[in-house]
């Protein structure tokens, strides 16, 4: 196409820069970046729902946490679990949870949808906190990181090594980005964006919108599970807080702060939120207050999120003939005009 697409250029630059990370950064920052890249996977999985399908879920930590618990449950006490078995299993558990919960919550919409997703996530939180299975409210340790052992004794990487884990997280992030972009431009993705913009019209055209929303919910849950699994592996510890509502709120904040519907916006949001938290946390113990001010300022000054900065900068130089409906997700003016039409 030759067009300088932020959806292509930005992630390529970012991956190239991140690939060089371990060569220049110390262990602390390599681990911090690993954590952030895992959160990027989490945030992008939520963006598929919030930004692309218009489904604002406030219970996304449930699928993240369920996969983390799946790894804890599947790990032998003093040995490493096999990554190639436990990762798909953990993602399948998350997908199943998303299928069941999605089947129920997708019958609601708007504020009720937000409340229903929150309620189900809190039920799972309460289950892990109070039932006493898998460690109860104290949580449980995972002593060995999962082993990437292939048949024949081959081990392509070792998660116990910080740099290896870093590159696995980088590959997961890049892979999920490519996967979600592919999905967005498929027939399925078009239907999702149509549902976000006007679900009633999609139904009157003949689309069974519930099925498409449920499929998106399951894909999103499975990918959140990937993030949860990697996170549990990185920190070697799971507790019910992983599923708590402020985790759901935090990842939603990343998506909104970064800019909804573009995927790279969600990624930017995750980076900025964690890094600002890190910087402020180093300056003062009362970092939550400036953090709040930062978020309020960002929401007021950047209604399209951080990704919107890039888009408007690009728009000033060259105006594409027709916006890509998938990329121009939160065009405030367009939304207003649509509202005026209605």
């Amino acid at each position, binding site marked *: 196409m030759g067009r300088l697409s932020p959806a292509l250029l930005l992630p390529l630059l970012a991956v190239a820069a991140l690939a060089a990370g371990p060569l220049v950064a110390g262990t602390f920052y390599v681990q911090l970046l690993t954590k952030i890249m895992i959160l990027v996977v989490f945030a992008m999985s939520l963006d598929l729902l919030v930004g692309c399908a218009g489904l604002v879920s406030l219970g996304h930590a449930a699928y993240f946490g369920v996969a983390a618990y799946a790894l804890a449950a599947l790990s032998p006490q003093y040995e490493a679990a096999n990554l190639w078995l436990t990762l798909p299993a953990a993602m399948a558990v998350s997908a199943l949870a998303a299928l069941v919960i999605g089947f129920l919550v997708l019958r609601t919409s708007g504020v009720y949808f937000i409340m229903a997703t929150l309620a189900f996530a809190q039920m799972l939180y309460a289950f892990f906190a109070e039932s006493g299975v898998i460690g109860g409210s104290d949580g449980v340790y995972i002593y060995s990181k999962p082993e990437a052992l292939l048949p024949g004794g081959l081990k392509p990487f070792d998660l116990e090594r910080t740099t290896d884990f870093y590159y696995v997280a980088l590959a997961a992030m890049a892979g999920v980005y490519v996967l979600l972009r*592919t*999905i967005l*431009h*498929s*027939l*399925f*993705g*078009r*239907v999702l964006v*149509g549902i976000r*913009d*006007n679900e*009633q*019209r*999609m*139904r*009157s*055209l*003949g*689309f*069974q*919108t519930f*099925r*498409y929303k449920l*499929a998106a919910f399951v894909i999103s849950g499975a990918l959140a599970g990937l993030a949860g699994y990697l996170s549990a592996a990185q920190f070697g510890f799971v507790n019910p807080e992983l599923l708590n509502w402020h985790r759901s709120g935090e990842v939603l904040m990343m998506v909104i702060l970064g800019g909804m519907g573009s995927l790279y916006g969600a990624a930017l949001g995750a980076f900025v939120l964690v890094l600002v938290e890190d910087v402020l946390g180093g300056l003062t113990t009362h970092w939550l207050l400036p953090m709040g001010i930062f978020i309020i300022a960002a929401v007021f000054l950047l209604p399209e999120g951080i990704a919107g900065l890039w888009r408007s900068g690009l728009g000033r130089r060259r105006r594409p*003939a*027709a*916006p890509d*409906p998938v990329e*121009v997700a939160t*065009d405030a003016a*367009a939304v207003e*005009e*649509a509202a005026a*039409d*209605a």
Partner: protein
Amino acid sequence: MRDMSPGIPALSVRGLTKRFGGLLAVADVCLDVAPGEIHAVIGPNGAGKSTLINLLSGDLRPTAGSIRINGTEVSGWSADRVARLGVGRSYQRNNIFPRFTAFENCRLAAQARLPSSMRFFRPAVSIRGPQEQAEHALQLAGLDRRADLPAQALSHGEKRLLEIAMTLATSPTLLLLDEPLAGTGAEEAAGIVALLKRLAAEHAIVLVEHDMDAVFSLADRITVMVDGIVVESGDPETVRNSAAVQEAYLGTGEADHEMGAFADAR
């Protein structure tokens, strides 16, 4: 069974009733539309015309009555199921995807006729069927030169045409058009009337419309509704001369200007 054999009406409605609490919005309506026929539904505001369309399209569930489309009983079906049977509806207020291009709007509509859109990997732009149907629909509506403009950049009249083009892209046999001329100027209206005339050859059309000139120039049959009840149904000549219609329209007062148009159309 969806062929347009002469025996089976495209649409056959019997005893259709919709009650909202104490309000009887549509009462015992009967209606037949043959293939290739334009059947206009007119009446003052609040007569139940839009409710009728919503019942036919499956957006509302009838309280009682039967709706047969090409011989299939569809009352109680969901809107998407009715649509897949070959029913295209357009809306009184623009109900398009403003950020999609005109072409994208139609392609998405055409996609609704694929067996499934649960296809996650192949780019949508590489799938030919919907592309061709979208091009065809835009051409029919005379929008082919505006295909690559975002829908929100179109003029009001063009948006009304796009609204119809989207329903055409789904290859319907029965069209339910809710005030396609709403808010258009004389020139735009003429363009839409011309389009509807062309469409009548291959579609059965239910047309709800306030513009009496358009109604009397297009309709093969006209049904007049007042307060949810059919007061007259027949060919334009019969309706024009009906005492019941005159009384009903004069009785509502608010429809004075329509009555004027009525007289002009005589």
